[in-house]
């Protein structure tokens, strides 16, 4: 089982703030988009190969490890992930860490990059204050 050290969410939040301060929205987007070709390359390949079940299994594993509260449903051909309790936001609040104002944007950027690289598309609507979001994933029109 993977080791879970949730303070890393706080460090990531500081990293987002730092990037934004130094290079604005474009810098944040450039950095996090690039992760699809490195950190998330295995997920991209799995998504391309197996489709939406790969994403569903990824999210299930991650949120189980971190103790998030989520639900899945299919809406037509789209996989919908509803996060009722984001473990990152919850932990940072519990520990009193500063949370970058644009923290949740990294989810949009990383999801977009992963999906685009695999021939899929994504959207997210979030409420960062409440630590909730709805993420959607579907196969992009070819």
């Amino acid at each position, binding site marked *: 089982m993977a080791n879970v*050290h949730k303070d890393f969410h706080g460090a*990531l939040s500081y990293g987002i703030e730092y990037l934004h301060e130094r290079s604005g929205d474009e810098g944040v987007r450039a950095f996090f988009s690039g992760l699809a070709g490195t950190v998330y390359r295995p997920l991209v390949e799995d998504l391309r190969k197996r489709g939406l079940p790969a994403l569903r299994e990824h999210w299930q594993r991650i949120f189980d490890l971190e103790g998030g509260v989520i639900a899945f449903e299919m809406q037509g051909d789209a996989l919908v992930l509803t996060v009722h309790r984001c*473990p990152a936001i919850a932990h940072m609040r519990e*520990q009193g860490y500063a949370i970058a104002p644009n923290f949740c944007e990294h989810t949009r950027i990383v999801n977009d990059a992963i999906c685009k690289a695999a021939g899929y598309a994504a959207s997210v609507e979030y409420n960062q204050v409440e630590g909730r979001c709805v993420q959607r994933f579907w196969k992009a029109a070819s």
Partner: protein
Amino acid sequence: MISCTEFIWVYSELFRYLDERGGKDEVFAFWKGISDNFLGNLREYIRTEGLKGMHKYWTHTLGEEGGRSILTLYDDTFIIDMHDCPSARLVHQSGRVAPYESYCEHCRHLYPPLIREYGYEVDYDVISCEKGRCRMTVKRPPGAVTPDAPARASDS
């Protein structure tokens, strides 16, 4: 959401990203920023309990992060002997990212300067970054005023 189980790879990639755009000075500035802005909990442990606080802090964090290490606490010394750093292992042995060449240097920039602010002497020695081996030794110098050895009224 980037999971905390994926964070170390992202961290390493962020170091590389900053280095490629601003050079080492930009990476050092980022590490200093983390030390100054993010490690408030470590500061609180040191401020209230000195060496014992450091032992508590790393017992907790390394307990969660995994790996293999020995923490030693003497009256005047605290030592971390890292035998298998969980984060260096992910960076250097997982194949997930191309390891950032100075990855292990972040610890040297994050922790010793912060600890020295409280009156301690700190040595940080990387033995092998690829193998995840290092040692940090924190000593309270004789006669030094530190949180766990405050100045006596008769000294002032």
